[in-house]
């Protein structure tokens, strides 16, 4: 059957599934809208968290990024999984015990102050908007690449579907569609991975194939190190970044993961404290399936790419080469006009431009898999982007309807009124996100790092200290959050956007990249919070009681 038909079938079926779930799980109260009624099974919540967490970038780009950066790519693998340990051990159980709806809820109540609540709302909104713009763009790109519609139409279709189930079902609808989306995306990611692993190494488990030998009996990683050396790249299994920077980036991503509001709220949806711990474990296990496969795919496709193209005549390229050339993901310029492809680390002689996304997207064709696998991949990429977008939408809408409206502006609003407000806020947020998807601000890529840095430097210290110390007061927490966020914003604006005089790599403070700076801003937050708290009065008995209470099982 034609590829186009397969893709329409896969996308159509998966979308009808999401719509069906949305109709089945309409939200009738704010509790259902914000936390799915609070009775989600830990394994279901684990799947939903995994889908919520793994975005279009994890699905499409991550393997490719690792493939081009080798050991340096480890920062994403460790950084985007290690945060779950912090969540399970330090945050999730206590936030569940606290038992409200949002992250600003906790900050506002624990620090008995609407100023603290407002700072938290502000941080939640920037973090979520920087993140969601990329997701809507991802939906548009997948549509345009596979279904030959333009990006705007793709974004609009994506908006329509998210709007339908997020506005109708709130967290309840989102949770169960995310469970379905996890199944779609993991199946779509693993099928080509298993085939390729078998093709290259004869081992069907990619995690083992990763360390196996090729047909000639040479270890794949050793071979790749050799190929890299020949072509002038740095050795695949060792990095080019400084150890200190790798340390800081990994830490910022881990702590940022644990501080992202759309991940944290997922743990409000389970029944009890022990379920919050369990679902963090399941979530990480489900995420680990993809995250331990990605570096294996990275190695298979990297080796495959170099062996297929390096110093080979352009005329003899396989059919997929031309196909991906037309999409702009592959580009060949014959600089020395010998008709062969020179692929080197030196920009002056390198003749091949490769987009990182191709490593996952072209896998089925490189491995010569049937058309339905390609269709599955398209549905999987859409599932990854939509599930993350929906989770973020809920954070945005609850920040507006619950934290701003109910808790600060109109405390008397009825449950019904709040529910309507939540739906209006969600609709407005979808439209805004769609607008960002159609007119992507040039800084989208740069701001993903910003989202993690901000989450690390604002929420994480405030929540952690709020649970593990009874002494931390509002003065400390508010000044800590403000210092952390300002420092992060300053560094990012200076080195990513050239404000405040800009700066080059050589000007980085202590050699820390903007991606890793969240670690420094987080430490600054901790220090400021502790010092200011120790010099101002302790919180009241009631608040200390509240802290004691969330520590009980």
């Amino acid at each position, binding site marked *: 059957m034609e590829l186009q038909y397969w893709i329409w079938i896969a996308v159509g079926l998966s979308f009808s599934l999401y719509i069906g779930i949305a109709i089945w799980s309409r939200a009738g109260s704010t509790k259902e809208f914000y936390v799915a009624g609070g009775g989600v099974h830990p394994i279901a919540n684990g799947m939903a968290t995994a889908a919520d967490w793994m975005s279009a970038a994890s699905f499409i780009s991550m393997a490719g990024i*690792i493939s081009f950066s080798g*050991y340096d*790519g*480890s920062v994403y*693998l*460790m950084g985007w*999984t*290690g945060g*779950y*340990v*912090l969540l*399970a*051990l*330090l945050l999730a*159980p206590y936030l569940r015990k606290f038992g409200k709806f949002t992250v600003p809820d906790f900050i506002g109540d624990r620090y008995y102050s609407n100023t603290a609540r407002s700072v938290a709302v502000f941080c939640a909104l920037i973090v979520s908007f920087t993140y969601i713009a990329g997701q809507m763009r991802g939906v548009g790109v997948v549509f345009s690449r596979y279904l030959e519609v333009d990006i705007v139409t793709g974004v609009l279709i994506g908006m329509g579907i998210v709007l339908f189930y997020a506005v109708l079902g709130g967290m309840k609808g989102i949770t169960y569609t995310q469970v379905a989306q996890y199944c779609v995306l993991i199946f779509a990611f693993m099928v080509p991975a298993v085939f390729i692993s078998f093709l290259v190494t004869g081992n069907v488990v990619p*995690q083992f194939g*990763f*360390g*196996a*030998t090729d047909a000639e009996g040479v*270890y*794949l*990683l*050793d071979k790749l190190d050799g190929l890299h050396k020949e072509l002038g790249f740095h050795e695949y*299994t*060792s990095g080019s970044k400084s*150890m200190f920077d*790798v*340390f800081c980036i*990994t*830490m910022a991503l*881990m702590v940022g993961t644990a501080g992202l509001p759309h991940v944290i709220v997922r743990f409000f949806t389970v029944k009890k404290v*022990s379920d919050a*711990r*369990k679902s*963090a*474990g399941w979530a*990480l*296990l489900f995420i*680990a399936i993809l*995250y*331990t496969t990605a*570096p294996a795919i990275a190695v298979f496709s990297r080796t495959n790419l170099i062996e297929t193209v390096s110093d080979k005549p352009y005329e003899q390229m396989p059919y997929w080469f031309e196909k991906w050339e037309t999409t702009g993901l592959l580009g060949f310029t014959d600089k020395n006009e010998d008709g062969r492809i020179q692929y080197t680390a030196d920009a002056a002689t390198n003749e091949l431009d490769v987009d990182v996304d191709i490593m996952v997207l072209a896998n089925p064709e490189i491995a010569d898999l049937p058309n339905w696998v390609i269709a599955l991949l398209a549905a999987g990429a859409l599932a990854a982007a939509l599930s993350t977008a929906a989770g973020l939408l809920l954070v945005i809408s609850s920040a507006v309807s619950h934290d701003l409206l109910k808790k600060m502006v109109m405390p008397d609003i009825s449950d019904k009124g709040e529910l309507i407000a939540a739906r209006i806020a969600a609709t407005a947020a979808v439209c805004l996100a769609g607008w960002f998807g159609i007119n992507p601000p040039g800084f989208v890529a740069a701001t993903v790092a910003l989202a993690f840095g901000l989450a690390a430097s604002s929420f994480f210290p405030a929540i952690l200290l709020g649970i593990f110390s009874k002494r931390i007061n509002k003065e400390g927490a508010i000044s800590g959050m403000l210092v952390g966020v300002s420092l992060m914003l300053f560094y990012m604006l200076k080195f990513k956007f050239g404000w405040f005089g800009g700066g080059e790599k050589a000007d980085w403070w202590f050699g820390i990249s903007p991606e890793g700076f969240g670690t420094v801003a987080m430490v600054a937050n901790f220090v400021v919070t502790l010092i200011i708290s120790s010099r101002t009065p302790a919180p009241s008995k009631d608040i200390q009681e509240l802290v*004691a209470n969330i*520590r*009980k*099982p």
Partner: protein
Amino acid sequence: MKNNTYWKKNIQYISILLSLWFIVSFGCGILFVEQLNTIQIGGFKLGFWFAQQGSIFGFVIIIFTYIYLMNRLDNKLNKEN
């Protein structure tokens, strides 16, 4: 068992498990990666394996260990009260 003992025990578990969290990722995958890379097991240099596979498996084991320990502690608390 008093709530105080429960909390102390919890803090003890967390400290041990977070040390392991630090060792498998920052320790083996970053700080001592070059030393570990001199050891090769199968097709993997050990430091590189920790950075791209081992740390993630380690994280999963750490969380499930914590789940087990805390469930045991919760049961003990329930029985005694």
